[in-house]
């Protein structure tokens, strides 16, 4: 018999070296997440995938699966807290879904729907963040950045470059670009780089493509993020 962990009463097999979220995804169990993406080194910063493992809160995307773990995931209290964490991501930036090109394809928005988020709850920070429209093909809209680090990892791990980094401390964190001017146009980013396509929100966009797919025909217009994620990530995992 293979080793298993128990998630919400269900025994789920895992392989040595798998994290809890990897085992869960392979078994068709959705754990909400934003900074995690199969095939990328785990980061563990958004904390949406927090699950309770034998009484202790752990990030499912970094915590190794091990026999004897009793994991609580789909629970009301966890869902409520994940909703609060998502609301934090909304208020620290400037997110205006109705006018955002990414609406309907945005994981932040979709996760918020999945967690039944109906308002922002917390006072807004209204930070002043710089937009970088210098590149002919790519737009960097920092107001929508949630510091998931996926573009940083994509550039390093997939593209073999170092286009992005997260700089600053605390609430003053910001995304920076590796070029002498600090602008995207002077970096070595290219349109086919993974880093351009990996952003879960509308912070990195390809210009002149924003409305090619009409609202109403986008990913999360037809599926919840849990359905879409399991479909996509199970395929990625194989």
């Amino acid at each position, binding site marked *: 018999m293979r080793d298993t962990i128990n998630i919400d009463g269900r025994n789920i097999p895992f392989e040595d070296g798998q994290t809890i979220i990897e085992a869960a995804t392979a078994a068709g169990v959705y754990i909400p997440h934003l900074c995690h993406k199969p095939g990328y080194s785990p980061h563990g910063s958004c904390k949406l995938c927090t699950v309770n493992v034998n009484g202790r*809160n752990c990030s499912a995307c970094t915590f190794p699966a091990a026999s004897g773990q009793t994991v609580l995931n789909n629970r009301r209290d966890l869902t409520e807290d994940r909703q609060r*964490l998502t609301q934090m991501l909304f208020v620290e930036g400037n997110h205006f879904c109705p006018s955002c090109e990414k609406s309907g394809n945005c994981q932040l928005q979709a996760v918020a729907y999945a967690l039944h988020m109906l308002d922002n709850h917390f006072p807004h920070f209204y930070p002043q963040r710089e937009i970088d429209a210098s590149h002919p093909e790519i737009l960097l809209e920092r107001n929508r950045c949630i510091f998931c680090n996926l573009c940083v990892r994509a550039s390093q791990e997939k593209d073999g470059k*170092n286009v992005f980094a997260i700089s600053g401390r605390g609430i003053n964190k910001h995304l*920076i670009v590796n070029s002498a001017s600090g602008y995207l146009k002077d970096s070595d980013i290219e349109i086919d780089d993974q880093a351009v396509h990996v952003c879960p929100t509308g912070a990195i966009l390809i210009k002149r493509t924003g409305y090619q797919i009409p609202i109403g025909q986008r990913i999360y217009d037809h599926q919840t993020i849990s359905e879409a994620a399991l479909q996509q990530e199970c395929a990625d995992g194989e």
Partner: protein
Amino acid sequence: MKEFIRAAAQQAGHQPVRLLQILRTVQSHYRHIPAEAIDLLAGQLQMPRTQIIADIEFYSFFHLTPQGQYDILFSDSITDRMLDKQNLIDRLSGRLKVSIGQVREDGLVSLNNTSCTGLCEQGPAALVNGYPLTRLDTARLDEIADLIERQQPLSTWPEHLFAVEDNIKKPGLLLNDPIPAGAGLERLYVKGLQVSLDEIDRSGLRGRGGAGFKTAMKWRLCAEEPGEQRFVVCNADEGEPGTFKDRVLLNRYADQVFEGMTICAAIIGAEQGFLYLRVEYLFLHDKLQHILQQRRDAGLLGGNILGRGLRFDIEIRLGAGAYICGEESALIESLEGKPGIPRNRPPYPVTHGYLNQPTVVNNVETFLAAAAIMVNGDAWFCATGSEKSAGSKIISISGDCQAPGIYEYPFGTPIRQILLDCRADEVLGVQVGGPSGVFISAQELDRKLAFEDLATGGSFIIFNTSRNLFQIVQNFMHFFAHESCGFCTPCRVGTSLLKNQLDKIVDGHGSAGDVAELEALCRLVKNYSHCGLGQTAANPILSTLERYPDLYHNQLKTISYEPGFDLDAALDVARRMAHRDDSAAHLTQVEE
């Protein structure tokens, strides 16, 4: 500049792990890190410039824009504030005509706040170009302002301005009886490595940083872990506000601390050690280097220690202003030249530490105690203290008492006894363990200093009944929001939300529900944060809310709702643009 950067990089052996040291050299020469220097360094060290910028923007002591020729940073700990720091900084700001947080137009002077500088018992304190100024008062500030206006070089400033005292008020088990240099290592080889480790185990020694992990277990786990190299790291990033005992230990007992590190190195099989020294203790740097050289000369460090073939040396690495680097995995990241962002665990540093090799990280006081145990034996050590907390604890006492300073007590000592010894009257409460610890009220003075009751890394701040509890809690919450590394959502956003929510209540804008909201937010930050900083950041609110709920509720307005959005303040930009400030240009948002 090219030549200067080339030399700085060369001096650091072109090692990216020494980036912080290089940046410090550049910062002190150019008073900031110029863009050109960043590009040159990126070339010299073969690393992306973004990594260098990320360091500069992470650490408080690095800057992208020039600071003043005289850069003054006031320690903004609660103890400094209790000693009238706020009026003093305002006075200096007025005398030098420079606003707080600004550089004067002529570039001569810059003035700002910084987190606790570890001089709490001789504050108010400040740093000028990194060197401490103690016991500030109006006379001293006027003298300093004068020296600056006359552009006197720091080296010619009168020595009394820089005097740092040890203030050891009550030595105990360890402080009374320092070991002679080399005595611990001699005993180690007489007894043998395994027996020695067993002895440290039997002594019951637990980590003195506050968390209390068993020292021998940490050393054993590290020794048993396969690895190409092993490392010993001494955590001297004493950043918890109100803690200054490591400052004194390194000023007076450094030999014994280094000996403890060397004993650990022999046991675990490490050849390289690091002292990670917070940059606020820059003034100790040269003295510590000198002691290391003396130990090399005496055969207590280097290629053949005591003629036993043991190879071990210690390098001092300075921090650059980040409280989070006291967290051991953040410290290791910082040692590697990166921003101090705590790692995901597992794996733990004991298996994957510095350069992903097995690493022991211990507090200064832990190494000091380990060396003494080697000489005096385990029975000597555990004869003192309580059952679960063997030995003594060295604490830093500051705040409202007549004799602040360093005190050493057997574990198990009641708080009441400590307050008697340092002559504290009319006590409102004590912050034990610093802002991340707990606030205890005057009703709890029979509680004990011990891992099983009140654990502390060394901070012990006393408040008398004249103090305003909210000012204390606000100072602590602003500290955490400033020091959050920003890696995880609950701490990055949550500590700032907590700060704002508390300020709203204290400023009299809180209404029904705002305390409940504050409490819910505390729970969220505590339960979901990535590391100890976030997990303890809400403690100042939680521990005072638990003890003084009425204080919080009485602060609330009687109306049922007060918007978080300040309509009138939001109109400020419009008023400035329209050049008007008449009553019609103001709005109140709630009918009083």
